[in-house]
């Protein structure tokens, strides 16, 4: 049985990886999809065309690589921590993605949206003060 401190360190180290690589992946995906263009025709033929364009885009592959890193960290942390702890705790990434959207992609963000992001981060801090595991090991 690991000590609570070691369990918390392991949990938060992997959540940090999730917070960095999740938003990075989202930004790469948005950049890739912006290059491909907005989907306005939802017919199967056009979706097949978009599907091919998606997997021919270097940006999309960078996004996928970042999200895979996120996915590995997420998978590992779920082997001991509660899903309802990990999912909200990782939401700190929402603040990071807004910052990246503003300063990397040049997106316009209203004050209300910034406040919303701030409240999300406060929610995350509260969640972070709950125990990572509330169920017994099988």
């Amino acid at each position, binding site marked *: 049985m690991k000590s609570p401190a070691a369990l918390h360190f392991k949990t938060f180290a992997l959540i940090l990886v999730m917070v960095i690589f999740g*938003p990075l992946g*989202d*930004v790469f*995906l*948005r950049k890739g*999809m912006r290059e*491909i*263009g*907005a*989907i306005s025709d*939802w017919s199967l033929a056009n979706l097949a065309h*978009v599907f091919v364009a*998606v997997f021919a885009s270097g940006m999309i592959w960078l996004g996928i690589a970042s*999200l895979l890193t996120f996915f590995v960290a*997420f*998978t*590992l942390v*779920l*082997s*001991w921590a*509660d*899903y*309802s*702890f990990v*999912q*909200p705790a990782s*939401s700190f*990434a*929402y603040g990071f*993605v*807004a910052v*990246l*959207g503003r300063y990397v*992609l040049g*997106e*316009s963000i*209203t*004050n*209300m*949206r*910034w*406040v*919303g*992001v*701030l*409240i*999300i*981060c*406060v*929610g*995350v*801090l*509260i*969640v972070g*003060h*709950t125990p990572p595991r*509330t*169920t017994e*090991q*099988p």
Partner: protein
Amino acid sequence: MLAEIILIFLIVVAGTGGELCLTRAMKTIGEVHDFRPRALLRFFGRAVTVGWFWLAILGMAAGFFALLGMLSLENVSFVIPVTALSYAAGALGGSIFLGERVTPQRWLGVLLVCIGVTLVWKGKG
């Protein structure tokens, strides 16, 4: 607008469903103690033999393609915070589907996150 609502629904429901299945799969396999590459490969080798893992891949793939669709239509600083609607679904699913005890404090955090998401939506401008 209809396309956006359908895509968000898919991201939330298929994505969260996939993550819940992944949690179930990981809990079946057990906690990771050894982080060396060979041990991690063995761990993932065990993961692919669990049915829940493949259901998770299916749900998360559907959520991923819905996310790509949304990202072709809207800014990342709007799309990603809005997908946090899955938090309510996650906490609910965690308590019902996985038997996790979601404490009142954790519910409060989730509630705040949801309020934040609402403001992000209203601040679309």
